[in-house]
């Protein structure tokens, strides 16, 4: 589907084809079953596809942000559960690359590009939008650290070998890389999520989990807001591109249906009120793509603007995805009103994109704060 989009970068065309081939027509059944085949995730992981931006020196594809984004959008157009796994794996890899020391980068990035799977755990029962309320903590114990806490809704945790866990650490904070098999780690699957049903969300309990001190990225002790902003900046661009994929799938399904379905003697596309839906879907696809391209450009240029550009891209694309999915269901009507249909799935998946990686409201607060600080006095 994304192959038809004009101006698509030729980079990663083989990876996009691999995703198409492996997903095939199975996204609907995976969604209904609430599970992705673990073998497929490992295969994509071993090809570097789940975190395409990892530099080649660490075993990755070394993709730039834009082609990586188009790959993410392609996966998102087919299966948002798979796309969420890519976002988590990519966010884990970026966090390790950005915050880890040389040895940690070498070790963990090799793992993440050879078939091991990772999830990122920020949220807690008392710390959702407000991550400053975080209570998970590391305590030093000789050459080890002991981790205690509770994490919520961790995407991909069910499939993960490694959990990248945000915790308090001394006066500051830290990301710790925790093997999912470590004693004291307990997963509890989230039952029947509204969307991204096969993404393996789990609550994670960490009860006296003892790890070598070398599991703490960069030795820890960093500022908590700087840590989550670092990880979330990648996650936001990734979710934003995933939303572009949702919108493209909705646009394609709505156009196909509006051409074929006839009512009152003509294809419904020729009824102006339906045509307006198509215009809105196209507008959403174009606007979201442009704002994602801008964020990817800022990211690639290492521009200081990338932080806010990521928030903007996520906010704009998630809103458009949620509205576009609703519009597409409207155009399909009864034909799209059943679980298993691409627009029905999009409708459930897209709503969650307005909640994760900074809800609509949190993104708006950040954008407002940006407007206030850049406007100057007076």
């Amino acid at each position, binding site marked *: 589907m994304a192959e038809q989009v004009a101006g698509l970068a030729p980079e990663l065309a083989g990876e996009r084809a691999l995703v198409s081939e492996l997903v095939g027509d199975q996204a609907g059944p995976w969604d209904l079953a609430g599970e992705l085949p673990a073998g497929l995730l490992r295969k994509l992981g071993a090809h570097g596809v789940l975190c395409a931006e990892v530099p080649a020196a660490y075993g990755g594809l070394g993709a730039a942000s834009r082609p990586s984004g188009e790959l993410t959008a392609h996966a998102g157009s087919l299966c948002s559960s798979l796309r969420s796994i890519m976002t988590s794996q990519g966010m884990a890899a970026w966090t390790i690359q*950005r*915050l880890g*020391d040389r040895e940690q980068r070498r070790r963990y990035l090799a793992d993440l590009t050879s078939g091991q799977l990772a999830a990122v755990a920020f949220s807690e029962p008392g710390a959702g939008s407000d991550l400053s309320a975080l209570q998970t903590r590391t305590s030093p114990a000789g050459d080890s650290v002991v981790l205690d806490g509770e994490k919520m809704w961790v995407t991909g945790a069910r499939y993960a070998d490694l959990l990248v866990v945000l915790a308090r650490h001394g006066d*500051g904070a830290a990301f710790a890389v925790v093997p999912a098999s470590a004693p004291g780690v307990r997963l509890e699957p989230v039952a029947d999520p509204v969307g991204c049903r096969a993404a393996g969300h789990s609550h994670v309990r960490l009860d006296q989990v003892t790890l070598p001190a070398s599991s703490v990225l*960069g*030795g*820890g*002790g*960093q*500022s908590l*807001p*700087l*840590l989550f*902003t*670092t990880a979330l*900046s990648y996650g936001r661009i990734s979710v934003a591109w995933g939303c572009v994929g949702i919108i493209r799938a909705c646009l394609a399904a709505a156009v196909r249906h509006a051409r074929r379905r006839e009512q009152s003697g003509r294809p419904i596309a020729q009824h102006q009120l339906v045509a307006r839906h198509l215009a809105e879907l196209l507008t959403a696809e174009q606007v979201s793509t442009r704002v994602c391209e*801008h964020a990817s*450009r*800022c990211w690639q*240029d*290492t*521009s*200081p*603007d*990338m*932080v*806010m*550009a990521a*928030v*903007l891209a996520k906010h704009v694309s998630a809103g458009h995805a949620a509205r576009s999915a609703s519009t597409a269901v409207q155009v399909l009507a009864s034909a799209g009103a059943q679980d298993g249909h691409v627009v029905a799935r999009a409708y459930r998946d897209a709503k969650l994109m307005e909640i994760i990686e900074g809800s609509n409201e949190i993104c708006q607060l*950040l954008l407002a*704060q*940006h407007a206030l*600080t*850049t*406007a*100057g*006095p007076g």
Partner: protein
Amino acid sequence: MTTGQAITPVTAEAVTAEAVSEALTAFLAERIKTEVAPDQDLFASGLASSMFAMQLVVHLEETYDIAIIGPELKLDNFRTVQAMTALVLRLRDG
């Protein structure tokens, strides 16, 4: 939110405390439209948020070819122009 200008990494001889401090003051004036004093607390005065601190991290790393990692990634290092200048000089020496 404009596309950032291409950043030219500065050469070694240009990295003195005065030069860094001046360049940072100019960067801040452009970004937050305010002339700040070298010891002015950007966070306490509401001029900057932790999101903006992240932008400062990216700016300093790119401009001075340094890596701000591990415990250096703390808000206190970005609180004032003085603190950021000291950070740049320390990391370039290290």
